[in-house]
């Protein structure tokens, strides 16, 4: 009893730490990676004792940025504008971050492993209706942004907040349709089950990943997810050139840091969800419970823990690739206009999603009989 | 012995189709199409009727063709089909209705040439044919009543065909209302039969079954039912006391008068009595009433006819008179003779009306005989055919009317009603008088037509004269089917109808020749008198009218029956409606209730409107109090 509680607590803490570190990593990648893409240096002043140069990575500044950015943000003045709703102004960032963080609880990072007689599912919390839970938390996530914009007593912030909430609830629909298509395909709401059913191969070589069954849903979820995380080309709520910084114009210091963490956590969340739904989650191609079985029939036996570790590594590789993909898009595509954004969401994604749903249902019924 | 014969439905189908087409598409497709569709519908029905009649003739005596189209009314033990039945009686009637009707439709094409409302006219005519055939072919009393009402409706529609004239519309209404009185009798008679038989467990109105179970009826019930039904017949067939609508019905187009108010509809009463002959035979007193009413009507109408100056009114009273003969025949038990007279009368009276129509048509609408005369040169075909018809109605030997009227007179005498016979013979003389008066005033003597109308006078087109000629042939030879007993195929008509209406059993012997001679003498006297009055000594009538002033005014005023009805029935009714029902009941009582309700609602609303505060929360509070009360009840339930 006690040990189970302990295991649960450990899992929760581990997942939380992983996510928070991932956001820091993404912050670094955004700073230095985008500089790399644009052929400039990027953040170049933070250099703790010339550590980066000594390690032979003068331009990457990994450790420096990872340390310097948080320190800078958390030591700045916590400014609250005059006439602001102080309570909500304080609450909003956490209201934004919290739903994103708790969403990670249901994401399976690996198959169940057995350690010392305890069967441990590598998933912080295992519900049966994981997919619904994900949709619910994402739906709640709107309020942090919206209230942050409203509580600042600033027109730009309010506009940003309104834009953000309108955009988020609009794209939630497309997202929901994509998730429903996936759920129909796998016949379960449990993310762990969805990952499990993506093991194995078709035709002897093609991994049974969701992306090969539901390519349309994959693209929809990718687009809708990026809109949910309010990143370019869907970054109208922030839109520096029009709204200064949108809903967090009036935020500074640690509260702004929380907003930024939310941003990157959302990027990570989208990557994690796409991985789980479409890229097999922790599945490694041709890797089964007792080792690899390659298409040619070659068998390479592995022990249980090794398989589990391989799965976790595979999960993180896929997630990171998808995170990088989202960050790369920022430097590739220009920003939409607001009407284009709404039209894309309502008049393109939703009809496509519905058609995809109907087609999926049709195939399921045909295959079922 | 009924043979299932589905094509019978076609007889109804064609007029129905024509009716719908003319009603809905007539104006769109134009006059030429309507002129084909209207008559063709009836000719089609006539053809099918002929086919069915031939089938009937080929069957053994007493057979019938029948078809049940669908079950109509199922109410408890009572059951009625929508069924048709063509036996000897309805066969003869069907042929008369469709045959005469077809030629009158044809005639109408010419007569209505200048009328803009041709489509409506033919629609009504087709609807009339449909209703009349339904009346004739119905295999039960209820369905017959549907047709009975249908012809009444069409009669109303066609009398007031030119509805823009208020008088015409009024006459149409009059016909309709007078018919209602008769129809009430019909309904009561029907219910009497149903109740009387129903108490014996026979809930039916089917003729065959009525007849089979007629022995269950007591004489009193049979008399009641027969008299009530006869009341209906007097309405539809324009007998005393309900004849008043028919002369006024002459304002309709003349072919309508020919078809509906001479040849077919007005004889429906006779047909009905003949159809229910088994019932009337059970009620001798009712038969006597029928005979008496028929005879008195015949005489009564004939006396009026001799002083009328409107050509159509003369014919109208003549029709009333002739139908009186038919009822007289039926009343003394000679149903077949009555029906025979229906048939011949349809020929010659239809022809007479059509001829009159041709005259009116030629004289641009002139109907007053005092402004006619000497037309025989200008309208030779009309004159010839009308003369034939007059000879027929005057019972000149050899013509159809002679055979039928002679049979009736003979039956009246041999049944023992000699005093009715005397009246009937006198009526025959009067008939000849007024008919020849009509011929002489119209076609002979000096021409009194207004000059500008005379200018347009011309013989009718072929489409009108052909029906005249056809009907003239029928009027001449149509009586031959009913030659008296002992002559060639003697009494073929009576034998043919006998299975349906029974045979006439004379109470006493009499020489047919003697009786016929008496009638012939009376007729001759009438013709001679007419010749004397209107050709030889034209000033004589006025002198007589002057010397017999009171009598003349009584006749010219049609015995003031209309005025009498007005005084005794219409005015009191009007007074009661206006003052008792209108003022006292409607205005004071009913309106008082209605206005009082409204007033009390308004008063209470004035008091209650304070509740409408416009404050939503106040409403919610009231609502909440209601919820508290309901919850309190449940608390009481739980605690108890």
């Amino acid at each position, binding site marked *: 009893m006690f040990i189970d509680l302990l295991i649960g607590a450990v899992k929760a803490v581990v997942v939380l730490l992983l996510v928070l570190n991932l956001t820091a990593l993404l912050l670094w990648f955004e700073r230095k990676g985008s500089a790399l893409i644009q052929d400039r240096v990027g953040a170049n002043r933070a250099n703790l004792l010339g550590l980066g140069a000594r390690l032979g990575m003068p331009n990457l500044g990994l450790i420096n940025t990872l340390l310097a950015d948080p320190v800078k943000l958390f030591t700045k003045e916590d400014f609250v504008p005059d006439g602001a709703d102080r309570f909500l102004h304080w609450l909003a960032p956490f209201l934004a971050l919290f739903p994103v963080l708790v969403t990670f609880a249901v994401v399976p990072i690996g198959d169940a492993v057995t350690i010392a007689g305890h069967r441990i599912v590598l998933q912080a919390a295992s519900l049966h209706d994981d997919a619904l839970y994900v949709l619910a938390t994402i739906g709640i996530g709107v309020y942090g942004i919206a209230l942050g914009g409203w509580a600042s007593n600033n027109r730009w912030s309010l506009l940003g907040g309104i834009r953000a909430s309108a955009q988020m609830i609009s794209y*939630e629909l497309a997202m929901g349709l994509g998730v429903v298509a996936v759920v129909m395909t796998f016949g379960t709401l449990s993310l762990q089950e969805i990952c499990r059913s993506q093991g194995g191969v078709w035709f002897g070589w093609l991994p049974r990943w969701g992306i090969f069954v539901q390519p349309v849903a994959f693209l929809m979820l990718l687009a809708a997810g990026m809109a949910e995380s309010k990143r370019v080309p869907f970054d109208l709520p922030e839109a520096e050139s029009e709204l200064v910084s949108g809903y967090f114009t009036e935020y500074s210091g640690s509260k702004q840091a929380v907003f930024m963490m939310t941003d990157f956590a959302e990027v990570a969340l989208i990557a994690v969800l796409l991985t789980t739904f479409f890229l097999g989650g922790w599945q490694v191609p041709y890797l089964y419970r007792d080792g690899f079985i390659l298409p040619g029939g070659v068998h390479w036996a592995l022990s249980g823990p090794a398989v589990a570790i391989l799965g976790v590594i595979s999960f993180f590789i896929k997630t990171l690739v998808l995170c990088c993909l989202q960050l790369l898009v920022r430097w590739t595509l220009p920003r939409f206009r607001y009407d284009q954004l709404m039209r894309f969401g309502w008049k393109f994604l939703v009809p496509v999603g519905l058609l995809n749903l109907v087609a999926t249902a049709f195939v399921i019924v045909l295959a079922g009989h | 012995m009924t043979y299932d014969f589905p094509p019978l439905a076609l007889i109804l189908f064609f007029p129905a189709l024509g009716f719908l087409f003319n009603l809905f598409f007539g104006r769109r497709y134009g006059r030429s199409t309507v002129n084909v569709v209207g008559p063709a519908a009836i000719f089609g029905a006539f053809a099918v009727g002929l086919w069915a009649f031939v089938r009937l003739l080929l069957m053994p005596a007493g057979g019938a063709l029948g078809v049940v189209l669908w079950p109509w009314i199922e109410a408890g033990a009572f059951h009625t089909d929508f069924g048709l039945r063509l036996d000897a009686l309805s066969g003869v009637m069907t042929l008369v209705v469709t045959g005469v009707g077809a030629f009158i439709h044809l005639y109408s094409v010419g007569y209505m040439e200048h009328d803009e409302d041709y489509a409506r006219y033919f629609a009504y005519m087709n609807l009339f044919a449909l209703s009349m055939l339904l009346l004739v072919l119905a295999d039960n009393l209820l369905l017959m009543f549907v047709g009975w009402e249908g012809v009444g409706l069409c009669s109303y529609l066609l009398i007031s065909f030119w509805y823009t004239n208020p008088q015409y519309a009024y006459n149409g209404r009059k016909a309709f209302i007078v018919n209602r009185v008769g129809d009430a009798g019909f309904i009561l008679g029907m219910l009497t039969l149903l109740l009387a038989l129903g108490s014996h467990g026979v809930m039916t109105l089917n003729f065959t079954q009525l007849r089979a179970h007629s022995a269950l009826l007591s004489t009193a019930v049979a008399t009641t039912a027969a008299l009530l039904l006869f009341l209906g017949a007097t309405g539809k067939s324009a007998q005393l006391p309900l004849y008043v609508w028919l002369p006024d019905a002459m304002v309709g187009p003349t072919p309508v008068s020919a078809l509906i108010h001479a040849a077919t509809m007005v004889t429906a009463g006779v047909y009905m009595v003949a159809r229910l002959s088994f019932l009337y035979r059970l009620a001798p007193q009712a038969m006597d009433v029928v005979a008496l009413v028929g005879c008195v009507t015949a005489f009564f109408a004939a006396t009026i006819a001799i002083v009328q100056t409107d050509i159509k009114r003369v014919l109208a009273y003549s029709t009333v008179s002739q139908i009186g003969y038919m009822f007289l025949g039926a009343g003394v038990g000679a149903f077949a003779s009555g029906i025979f007279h229906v048939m011949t009368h349809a020929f010659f009276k239809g022809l007479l009306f059509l001829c009159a129509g041709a005259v009116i048509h030629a004289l641009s609408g002139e109907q007053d005989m005092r402004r006619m005369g000497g037309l025989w040169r200008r309208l030779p075909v009309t004159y010839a055919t009308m003369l034939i018809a007059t000879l027929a109605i005057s019972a000149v030997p050899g013509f159809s009317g002679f055979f039928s009227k002679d049979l009736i007179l003979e039956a009246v005498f041999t049944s023992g009603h000699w005093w009715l016979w005397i009246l009937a013979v006198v009526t025959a003389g009067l008939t000849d008088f007024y008919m020849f008066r009509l011929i002489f005033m119209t076609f002979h003597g000096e021409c009194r037509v207004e000059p500008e109308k005379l200018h347009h006078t011309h013989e009718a087109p072929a489409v009108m004269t052909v029906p005249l000629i056809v009907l003239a042939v029928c009027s001449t030879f149509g009586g031959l089917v009913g030659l008296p007993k002992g002559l060639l195929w003697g009494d073929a008509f009576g034998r043919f109808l006998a299975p349906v209406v029974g045979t006439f059993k004379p109470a006493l012997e009499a020489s047919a020749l003697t009786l016929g001679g008496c009638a012939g003498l009376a007729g001759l006297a009438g013709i001679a008198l007419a010749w004397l009055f209107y050709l030889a000594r034209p000033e004589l009538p006025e002198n007589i009218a002057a010397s017999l002033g009171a009598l003349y005014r009584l006749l010219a005023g049609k015995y003031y029956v209309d005025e009498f009805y007005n005084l005794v029935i219409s005015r009191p009714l009007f007074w009661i409606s206006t003052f008792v029902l209108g003022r006292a009941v409607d205005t004071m009582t009913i309106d008082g209730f209605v206005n009082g309700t409204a007033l009390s609602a308004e008063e209470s609303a004035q008091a209650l409107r304070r509740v409408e505060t416009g404050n939503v929360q106040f409403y919610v509070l009231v609502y909440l109090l209601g919820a508290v009360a309901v919850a309190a009840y449940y608390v009481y339930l739980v605690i108890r």
Partner: protein
Amino acid sequence: MTAWLFGFLATLALVSALGVILQRNPVHSLMALIVTLLVTAVFFIALGAVTIGFLQAIIYAGAIMVLFLFVIWLLNIQAEEREAGHLALKSFGALAAAALVAELLAIAGRAPAPEAAVKPSPAYGTIATLAAALFSHYLIAFEATSLLLLVAIVGAVALARRMPRRRSTAASPAAASVSATGQDVSAPEVSRRAASA
């Protein structure tokens, strides 16, 4: 549901519900309402109605309340001033409401407790069970609901559409430009419910 969990959740629900009616700023009221709804969703899940609990969170808390938020912003509603009027109405209303609660509590206190008798099956409250009921026994009502939503969408759009010739009546430029985007709000909201449902 254990007693302490019930006590915690019930307290939270009551406090937040009181917040709905006691907060003078409508946005704060709305926040309190959202908390109430989420707590109720947790109640549902704890009572075994897992799917309904999530639906409550997604639809009620996640979407309908956003609609309220938009309207509050669109109409630029400020915090209510304390008002003196309608004291009789208010006090009498509160009294009546208290009476109703008392009555309901009296009824609830006497309600039979069949919990021990019926042990829910493992499938109880799952989406499959709910869907089976909706698509068989309640099919007509379900379809009628879709019709209702359609009517509501059309009605809401027709009602909220700005009349062409009227000038904007919003007070501030911010609110004015809000309404330009706010037009899209009501309709998408509702149809989203249809799709999620």
